[in-house]
């Protein structure tokens, strides 16, 4: 009888078989923000020196810049009481049982699959859709498209990365872009080569891990000449996090004749401050479209913008905000016309309910010499009751000639006439109200891929029933 060879489970076992957990190096998460923490983050990630320096410089800028006071009340944020970097494994420490009941109930009502809800709730760090992701990746790489997380991009495509990173939104742009540049982690990186049109929307969802929905994600998209890509981030189901601050930066470069659409559905749990800087540079005859839906969070401040750099560039913002009890959605858009013959539109739809507050804040800037520009802003607010609030803050600076600038704003309530009409056909009141609200945001919904549109309508229905916390 042959004896099976003994397996040596000696000292090198862990390294050999890949089960090695380098305990000495586990980053012990600390609260607060200082150069040591920033250096540690950069070192943990094995970043090149230029990035470490940029992070440290950004931290300085962040400290010097005053807190913006022109928008929502941010004074309650305690920067010293935040974890600035958590490894995925640390984030998983929560258990399903600890989740707030309203979040669990919403998953149930939306019918979110088990694996997915654990991920969304932060209980699992990985959403299991590897198969879909891999076949997609194969197709993309044949076309020369790079679609990866931002940390990997810095490692694997250092030159491309360095050429564009921080060029659209420099650290000094605002306090929160400085913060993000100092401590960023995760996010998506996309490069679409010349003339390549990516025919299916790229969704962070498919390849997501906790890093991608992290607190300080950083996204960089480069659309080379004549290319097209549609990127979708977020999802309609609520994302639960115990982190109270989400401060992302999204930079997009849309070169000549290219088109980029960026769709966001944000539904953070209502303890989150969502302060995001999103900006695109659009060059000759390029088109940038932001489709931006904000449902969750306690406070959101987000104004996707397009810098129209060369003639023929076109910018679009289409946004929807829903503010329920205790929420303030301060959203809008910015269009900066640098070159002549550029066009822009901003369409903003907001819904306020149960004392929620929505604000439209927009800026149209037309530089001297940027003649023959057209810009149109339309904001419609729907108030569902008397305690709710909606404001409009449009800012226009026009320094050029022959400019067409339009602004239209409406504030309405769900009208008795509409409600009576639908009810007189046998539709119960709650369902009729939901229909009217869904009808109101339909110009937004119809721009979403079907599955997102369906989910959004269902979510609005839940919000209307008041069953979502």
């Amino acid at each position, binding site marked *: 009888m042959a004896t099976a060879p003994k397996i040596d489970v000696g000292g090198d076992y862990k390294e050999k078989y890949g089960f090695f957990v380098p305990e000495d190096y586990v980053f012990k998460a600390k609260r607060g923000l200082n150069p040591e923490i920033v250096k540690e983050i950069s070192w943990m990630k094995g970043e090149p020196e230029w990035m470490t320096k940029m992070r440290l410089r950004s931290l300085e800028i962040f400290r010097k810049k005053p807190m913006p006071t022109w928008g929502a009340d941010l004074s309650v944020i305690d920067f010293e009481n935040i974890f600035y970097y958590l490894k995925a494994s640390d984030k998983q420490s929560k258990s399903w049982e600890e989740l707030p009941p309203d979040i669990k109930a919403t998953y149930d009502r939306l019918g979110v699959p088990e694996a997915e809800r654990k991920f969304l709730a932060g209980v699992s760090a990985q959403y299991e859709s590897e198969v879909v992701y891999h076949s997609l990746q194969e197709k993309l790489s044949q076309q020369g498209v790079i679609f990866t997380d931002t940390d990997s991009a810095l490692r694997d495509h250092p030159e491309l990365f360095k050429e564009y990173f921080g060029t659209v939104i420099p650290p000094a742009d605002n306090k929160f872009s400085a913060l993000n540049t100092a401590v960023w982690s995760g996010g998506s990186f996309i490069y679409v080569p010349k003339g390549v049109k990516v025919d299916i929307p790229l969704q962070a969802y498919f390849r997501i891990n906790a890093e991608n929905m992290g607190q300080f994600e950083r996204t960089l998209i480069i659309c080379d000449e004549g290319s097209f890509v549609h990127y979708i981030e977020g999802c309609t189901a609520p994302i639960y996090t115990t982190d109270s601050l989400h401060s992302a930066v999204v930079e997009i470069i849309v070169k000549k004749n290219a088109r980029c659409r960026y769709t966001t559905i944000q539904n953070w749990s209502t303890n989150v401050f969502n302060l995001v800087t999103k900006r695109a540079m659009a060059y000759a005859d390029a088109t940038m479209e932001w489709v931006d839906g904000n449902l969750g969070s306690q406070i959101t401040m987000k104004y996707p913008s397009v810098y129209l750099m060369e003639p023929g560039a076109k910018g679009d913002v289409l946004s929807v905000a829903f503010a329920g009890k205790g929420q303030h959605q301060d959203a809008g858009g910015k269009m900066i016309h640098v070159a002549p013959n550029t066009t822009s539109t901003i369409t903003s739809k907001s819904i306020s309910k149960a004392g929620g507050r929505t604000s439209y804040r927009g800026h149209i800037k037309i530089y001297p010499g940027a003649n023959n520009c057209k810009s149109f802003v339309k904001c419609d607010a729907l108030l569902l009751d008397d305690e709710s609030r909606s404001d409009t803050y449009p800012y226009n600076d026009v320094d050029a000639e022959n400019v067409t600038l339009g602004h239209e704003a409406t504030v309405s309530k769900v009208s008795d006439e509409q409600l*009576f009409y*639908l009810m*007189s*056909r*046998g*539709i*119960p*009141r709650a369902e009729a109200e939901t229909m009217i609200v*869904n009808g109101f945001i339909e110009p937004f919904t119809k721009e979403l891929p079907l599955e997102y549109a369906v989910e959004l309508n269902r979510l609005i229905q839940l919000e209307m029933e008041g069953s979502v916390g």
Partner: protein
Amino acid sequence: MADFEIKDLRASVEGRQILKGVSLAINKGEVHAVMGPNGSGKSTLSHTLMGHPGYTVDGGTVTFKGKNVLELEPDERARLGMFLALQYPVVVPGISMANFLRTALNSHRGYDGKDKSKMVTPKEFRSLLKGELETLHMDDSFLSRYINDGFSGGEKKRAEILQMAVLKPEIAILDETDSGLDIDSIKFVADEVNRMRGPELGVLIITHYTRVLQFIKPDFVHVLVDGKFVLSGGPEVADRLENTGYSEWGKEEPAQPQEVA
């Protein structure tokens, strides 16, 4: 007792009493016309019957299937079998007519998003609509348009009658469905109403003008002036108004539309 019985109905709008005791008994299979000059309370009658929140009931009862419908919400009245075709159908942006009709039909069937066996299937829905659309001379594209959004006057009224055809009420109130309609549209609407007419449907046509009654022959005609019925009878009442208008009640208004050259 009649199938649908209005007794001594009194109602007001913004504190002003408009209906001052209206009684009317409608049986299924009958077509009643209520005629009246401007401001007589015709719209108040139709809206109060359907439960519009802008109209206050001051007294009286409306009994249908053993219930006082005045105590019900508009949607409950509809599901009980009542229907109101509005004089001014409301625009609701962002909701397609198809979605609207399907949702209304599902509500009538008691589908609340759970028991799928109660839900109208796409196939059934299509076949339901097909014949009605033809009778009303409407094409399919109409179904994908938003509720009454950008509809012409004639399209709006035809859309109302289409809803009635789909929902199959037992008591239908047509509030000045003929006003603002060209003669072709009146005919299409009348064809559809006549098609639905039968022992399962009671109709209350509310109108200022006699013209529509040439196409939908009423069994009974009631004249409403200053919130009360002043005359009730058979179709001959309409003929009388055709000639003299409302002058015998001190209202110098003809009961025929002024021809627009």
